[in-house]
Each structure stands twice: as C-alpha cells, then as structure tokens.
C-alpha cells in the first residue's frame, strides 16, 4: 500500500505539471487579451505598456515565463500576482477557501441526507408510486440548471426580495468566525440549490445499486439465516451498495472544492469558483493558473483518497 501511494503521488505531481503547462499554452496560443495593455489602460503611451510588459515578465518567451512560474511555485509556493489588481494569487485563493469549503461540505451533507434515503426507499419499493414520484422528481432536479434553481430559490425564499422571507439573501455570506447564525442562514439556499442535482443523481445511483445488490446471492443467504429484512437491507445490502457511492462522493467533493462556480455567482459567495470566473472575464492569467491548479489538485487528491478508501471498504481490493 505504501508503494502504491508513493507511485500515485508521483503521477499526481506529473499530472498537475501537465495541467499547468496546458493552461499556460492555451492562454498564450489562443487569442486572449494582452495583459500589459489591459493593465496600462486604453490611453496609455507605448512606453508605459512596454515597461509594464517587462514588469510582468511578458516580454520573455512563454516557456521561460512558465519556468519562472514553476520555480516560484516550487521554491516559495508563490502563485504569482494578479494582472488585474496585483494581489497575491495564493493569498486570494486561501482567503476564499473557507467560503468554498462551507458551500461544498454543507452541500454534500444535504445531498447525502436527501439522496441516500430517497434512493433506498425507492429501491425497497421499486416501481411503486412512491418510487416513480421520487425518480421523476429527481429527473427534474438533475435537469434544472443550477443558475435557474438558484434564481428561483432566491425569488421564493430570500430575505428582502423573496415571496417567503425565510433565508439569507444573495451576498449575505459572512465567514463562520464572524457570525455563525448569519453564516448558516446565508448558506441554506446555496446548499439546497447545489445539492438538488447531486441529491437526485445520488438517489438514482443508490436506487440502482441497491436494487442490483439485493439480487445478489449473499442476500439470499442472509435471509436464509433468518435475519430480519431490515437487517438484510441495511447491514448486508447497503454495505455493498453504498461502497461505490461513497467513493463517488469523494470525487464530487474534490471537484467542488475547486469551486462551485455557478452557485457562487448566483448567491454571491466569495469562493474560489467566483474568483475563477472573475479571473477569466478579466483575462487574468496568474489567477486562472492558480485556480486551475487548485482545482486539479483537489480532484487528483480526492481521486487518490477515494481509491485508498475503496481498499479499506472492499476487502477484495488490494494494491501491489
């Protein structure tokens, strides 16, 4: 197992390098804005643009720029400075992490708490009215775009602007350290909006997995031993059915930690997703690089964790 982890980690580093390089290439090859010109302003003298270009290191060939970027990253963990407002990209990302973590973890809890029970109940009574209603609803939830759901939920429930003024309005997010109550209230609508599609997806997956599992021979054996049906379903059935679900959830968390962009935009939550969106709009390469790198890192890391977790959950899986 140890050797396996080491090997995976090395591959992960290589992958992050490649991702980083590709971002660099895309930004330099495809027609994107000239950061020096953007920074200088439209009325600027050529002399100013020229000097700013030198200051930003843009006069060097792009592989040199990439090398400099890598050196800064590896030696000082320096992710560069935003072309847009000169702030340190690393500190910007770190200051936004708590918000993204809040959205992700909360959303995860909500979607598991909804999705799993719905899936289980549907699996126990397949093709019943309850099952059909639940699966139909989940199809709708999966299909509705986050942006649409978000705006609808704000319209219905947001304080100040909604029909029923129950929950925090867009932009009301404060860090948990500042005010737990307001923090919580501001995240309820985003959590449910984000969770809607995921819960639906997980409900369908759980249902499918559990139905399949319940047809396995060992379930028949469990019944033949005289176990109560509830024990057969939960201890024997779910244990096997949920293993792939848990690992999938790990991957989804990894993905979302890179920033749930649409949710953060609609609800105005200052997370990494929002930062990435602004960076793209402003052609801010260092910020784009930073968010891509972070996103890739979380996905790769989550992938690794999930694979290791799987080995613990399923005794048949071993890693050489």
């Amino acid at each position: 197992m140890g050797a396996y982890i080491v090997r995976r980690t090395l591959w992960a580093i290589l992958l992050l390098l490649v991702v980083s390089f590709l971002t660099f290439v895309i930004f330099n090859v495809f027609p994107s804005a000239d950061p020096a010109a953007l920074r200088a302003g439209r009325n600027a003298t050529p002399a100013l643009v020229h000097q700013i270009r030198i200051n930003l290191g843009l006069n060097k060939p792009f592989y040199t720029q990439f090398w400099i970027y890598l050196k800064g990253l590896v030696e000082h963990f320096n992710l560069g400075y935003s072309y847009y407002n000169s702030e340190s990209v690393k500190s910007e990302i770190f200051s936004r992490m708590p918000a993204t973590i809040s959205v992700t973890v909360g959303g995860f809890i909500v979607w598991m708490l909804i999705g799993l029970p719905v899936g289980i109940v549907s699996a126990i009574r397949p093709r019943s009215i309850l099952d059909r209603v639940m699966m139909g609803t989940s199809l709708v939830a999966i299909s509705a775009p986050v942006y649409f759901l978000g705006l609808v939920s704000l319209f219905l429930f947001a304080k100040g602007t909604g029909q029923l003024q129950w929950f925090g309005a867009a932009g009301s997010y404060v860090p948990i350290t500042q005010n737990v109550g307001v923090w919580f209230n501001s995240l309820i609508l985003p959590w449910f909006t984000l969770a809607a599609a995921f819960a639906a997806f997980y409900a369908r997956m759980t249902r499918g997995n559990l139905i399949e599992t319940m047809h396995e021979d060992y379930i028949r054996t469990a019944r033949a031993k005289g176990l109560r049906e509830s024990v057969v379903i939960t201890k024997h059935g779910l244990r096997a059915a949920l293993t792939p679900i848990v690992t999938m959830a790990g991957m989804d968390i990894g993905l979302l930690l890179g920033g749930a962009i649409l949710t953060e935009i609609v609800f105005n939550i200052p997370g990494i997703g929002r930062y990435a969106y602004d960076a793209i709009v402003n052609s801010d390469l260092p910020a784009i690089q930073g968010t891509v790198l972070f996103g890739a890192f979380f996905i790769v890391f989550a992938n690794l964790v999930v694979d290791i977790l799987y080995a613990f959950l399923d005794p048949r899986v071993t890693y050489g």
Partner: protein
Amino acid sequence: MPLLEIEDLHVSFKTMDGVVRAVEGVSLSLDARKTLGVVGESGSGKSVTAQTILGLTRFPNATISGRIMFDGHDLVTMSTDHLRSIRGARIAMIFQDPLSSLHPFFKVGHQIVEAIRVHEDVPRDVARRRTIEALRSVGIPSPEERFDSFPHEMSGGMRQRAMIAMALALRPDILIADEPTTALDVTVQAQVLELIQALRDDFGTAVILITHDLGVVAQMADDVVVMYAGRVLEQASRETLFTEPEHPYTWGLLQSIPRLDAPRTGRLSPIAGSPPSLINVPRGCTFHPRCPYAPPPAFETEPALAPSEPGHLVRCHLPVEERKRLWQSLQNEHPALR
C-alpha cells in the same frame, strides 16, 4: 410421520414475458434422519421448490399455493416473522456458489457468528468459540485464523465447508443443500459430500440434496425424486431408481452419465432436445417432445403420478409392463447401466 411434507405445491411468477410456472403440483415428503435426493436439469423447478420451503420465493410477483407441513405448521401460509425463527435454526440451506453466497465484505467467522446470534442470545465470545468449533468440525485447518478470513481469501472447497459450518451451527432438523458441489472441482466434490454425510450421521440431520448429478445422488440419497418442467416424473428409493427406473427421462439421465469403465470409443448419449419453456409448457406429457417411446395419449393428456409399486411413483402413460420391458432392453444394449 414425515418431518417435512410438501403437498401439491404450485409456484408461478408473473413476468413481462408471461407467467412462468416453475413448480406444478409437486408433492414430497422427508422423514427424519433421511436424505432425499432431488434430481433434474436446470429449470426443472428443484431449486424453486427448495427455496419455497424457507419462504425465499415470496416475491411480489409470485403465486404460491399448496401446503408445506413442518412440525404441525404450514410453511406456505406462515407469517414471515415466524418463518424467520425457523430459517437457519430448524431448517438451514446451503447454496451452489459459496463465493457469491457469502458476503464479500464480512469475515467468514463474523458471518457465522451472525447466524448464531440471530437465533440465540449468546455473548459474542461464546458465539466466536462455537464458530471456531464449527469450522474445525468441517475440517478447516487453523480455524482460529480462518475466522478472520474473507471469503475470497479461501479456496472453493474451504468456502463450501464454511457454509456448511454456518448452516449446521445451530443443529437444524433439516439441511437443504442446493447443488453444493456443482461449483467445485471433482476432487473437492467428493470431500464435501463426505463431509455432509458425516455431519448428517453425527447430528441426525435430514437432508434434501438437490443436484443435476445422478452420481451424487447415488452416493448419499435414501430416496430420490426426479423433476422435470416443474413436475415430479419419478419418485423411488435409491435402490429402486438405479436398478428399476421406470421413466424414459430417468433412463435418459442414467444413460448420459459418462463412466470410467465405458469403452472409450463409445459416444456420450445425451437426451435429445432441451427442456421446455416454463411459460409455454407443451400439451400433454411435458416430456413427450423428447421421449423416444411416447405413446399417442402422451401428446394430449398429462399423465398422473401413479404408483407402479408401493413407494415407487411414476408419471407416464406407458403401461408398467411396457416400461419394464424397455428398461430390460436398454440394459442389454448398454451393459454399463446395470
């Protein structure tokens, strides 16, 4: 007084393609301490019959009628709660593939402990000790270590032994073994059968042994039932079935067994054709499309299961004398059948 008596059991399943009549009018009885062999091809209804005893076929799309009398109660109409108290404790079952029949995520020892503790309120360590003893008694070496093994870490033979240990841990009155050796190597098969025999003798368990392999039945069964298309075609003691079988299907089964002492140039003689669909059962005798001797009535009416001698039931239109004569001539053709 039989220990278990199945009377006119009918089991059918509603499916998208039609109604599958898996078991049609099967009646069996099992005496205490006896072994009943149930023989038939795939789809003959033998597994469904066995599973129905324990109520394992109670699906929403199933229709079950008839009676299964055990200990004065009818298992067909018994509540699932009551049935659960019987499962594993009074009647236990082992299945064909021990790898898929044991839960892959739980240690083998744990699964046996579970089987014990669902019926007896014993502390964990007591159950553990009993489990280790059970593993030892089925011939598994180093049972204390094997307790912590996962199913996939054991060989096929060892797994089946563990299943047997689990089934017999609570000393049930009846053990139903559904094709216990089919998934095993030939050498291991013999060992497992011997084990079942030994335990049967030690604990006095009645056994229902389900198989498609007449050779297995020849070793262990006291009485044999031959099933086909959900029906019993012949029922007799082992002795009678192997020396004086009276159904063309049984003859065909006996003929198709490969034998070590048969000449090498001799070809295998399987029964021509394949088992019928259980949705569209053929009219008349269900076996007639494959029967070389089918008389005209076989095409129209289903024969009844009737005794040709006391204790020997046959479902065939051919007259008894005709059957005996045919069997005689078959034996002359194939000396191996003697």
